[in-house]
């Protein structure tokens, strides 16, 4: 066996190794995804854009610099980015990133648990920003928490929809339901839940119409403002964490709601490798869609964001409602 070329692809990996590869996929490919989206976005705007690998160079540069702490800040300032980064490392263990079957640690938490851990990451960053005593960082922190509180119910209703459709709270079950039946993909409850989650992802990744992620105007910032006072490795963790959060949300949208195909159905190295490539391809396509949305709409004024979130909430509630009355 070992004498033949490509023997390594026929090797069956242990489920724990696949679990580790899942986490490493999100960890290592997240900056690449961000770089590719930034490049595509620049092309849409008629610019040449940064290199696709630019986020890796940026991370390297930040890791080699020293961390400066504002006067009066406590250990929370440094702990925030680390806690958030750890949270973003845990979530890929709970969701279907590469495999169509649950991995051992996938039972640590359900889809709601994944949402809470993502929320904890956001809270840690906000706490860290609030600890800086800088007005802009605190403004961003306060805004992120306010809009996050409005976004939470949407996520909850999307989760409830998934729960009532699949009779389980495991994201793997939702993906399996869709894979097994084409009509489940077109069920109104599923489509509405997917749209609501799409709108949440737009909001959570700091995209237009909620936020200009590449903007430089401090007064319009929400998520971006929270990292104002950070520098060096802490800033690198925040940037990397932000890219990972984006990839996690894309993965949930793709592998749970929209296109749960191309996942590995066994633990063979070849199947896992193909699943990695498939995930990257699907995430790039979704990233291009988000970049297209970003370039096609205007940013909402700050007090109009509640209307956007109210609309998303309405769609999420409608998803649950149409299912409960037997319409979808």
């Amino acid at each position, binding site marked *: 066996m070992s004498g033949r070329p490509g023997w390594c692809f026929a090797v069956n990996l242990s489920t724990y190794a696949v679990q580790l590869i899942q986490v490493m996929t999100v960890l290592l490919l997240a900056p690449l995804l961000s770089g590719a989206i930034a490049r595509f976005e620049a092309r849409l705007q008629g610019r040449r854009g940064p290199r696709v690998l630019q986020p890796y160079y940026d991370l390297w540069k930040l890791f080699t610099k020293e961390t400066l702490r504002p006067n009066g800040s406590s250990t929370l300032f440094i702990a925030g980015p680390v806690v958030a980064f750890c949270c973003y490392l845990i979530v890929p263990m709970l969701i279907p990133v590469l495999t169509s079957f649950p991995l051992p640690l996938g039972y640590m938490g359900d889809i709601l648990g994944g949402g809470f851990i993502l929320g904890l990451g956001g809270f840690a960053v906000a706490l860290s920003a609030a600890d800086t005593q800088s007005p802009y960082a605190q403004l961003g922190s306060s805004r992120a928490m306010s809009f996050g509180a409005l976004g939470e119910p949407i996520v909850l209703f999307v989760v409830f929809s998934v729960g009532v459709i699949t009779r389980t709270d495991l994201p793997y079950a939702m993906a399996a339901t869709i894979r097994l*039946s*084409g*009509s489940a993909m*077109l*069920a*109104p409850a599923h*489509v*509405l839940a997917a749209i609501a989650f799409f709108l949440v992802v737009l909001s959570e990744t700091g995209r237009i119409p909620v936020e200009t992620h590449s903007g430089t105007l401090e007064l319009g910032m929400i998520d971006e403002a929270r990292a104002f006072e950070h520098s060096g490795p802490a800033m690198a963790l925040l940037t990397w964490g932000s890219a990972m959060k984006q990839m996690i949300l894309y993965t949930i949208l793709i592998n749970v709601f929209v296109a749960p195909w191309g996942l590995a159905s066994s633990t063979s190295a070849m199947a896992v490798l193909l699943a990695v490539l498939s995930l990257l391809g699907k995430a790039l396509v979704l990233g291009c869609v988000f970049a297209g949305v970003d370039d096609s709409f205007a940013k909402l004024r700050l007090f109009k964001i*509640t*209307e956007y979130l*109210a*609309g998303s909430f*309405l*769609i999420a*509630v*409608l998803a649950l*409602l*149409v299912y409960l*009355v*037997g*319409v*979808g």
Partner: protein
Amino acid sequence: MAAATVLSSPSTFTSVVTLFGVGVLVTEFLMLRAHLLRSQVRLYMVQSFLVAAVALVTGIEQGNSGLYVVSVLSFIIKVVIVPMVILRLMSVDSADLSQSAIMKLPSMLYIALVTAACGFFIGVSFRTASVIGRGTAASGNAVSVDIAIVLVAFILIVLRRDVISQVAGFFSLENGVTLFSVSVARNMPFITEVATFFDLLVAAVVFGLLMRLHHMKTRTLSTHVLDRLKG
């Protein structure tokens, strides 16, 4: 091959028809927040397109050629002619309608949502009635959605104080009734369906002229100023 199998399965037809019906309902929610005349008319176009699509899909499912004609007529009259007539008659296509709502948008949306929920539950009790009970799953689901569409159209008319939204609400209401007739009363005489469409065309011209007249006389699209007969 697999795609063809999926599309030909009855459950997929039911899902598609119900999905388009829910799409019509969602466009009504969007109409509640539309701020410009042009966006209100565009939403009506999208909504009418979905209604035409429901007629087409139902026609394919039932093998009913009459529904193909309904679909084509629906597309020509509601997606092309009626919006064109309204936009031509109203020269103020960028008119701002944002001040016409009688309450804040989230409140309007929640009222509309509760109303839609009432419509759904009324539809559920309708489904147990003997006439509709004999229909297909698609018609059973559509009844709930159609009742919700009609009720939310009333909410749109009540909560927006501008003539454009009220006319859009009226036309949405008509779309809800058309969906109801397509999904439940498929054997309605064809001549009745065609007569309804031409009534709609006349209504579009009359409403368009009334809106134009109202705008010329009051320099606003708001109905708030129509208080001369108020006690």
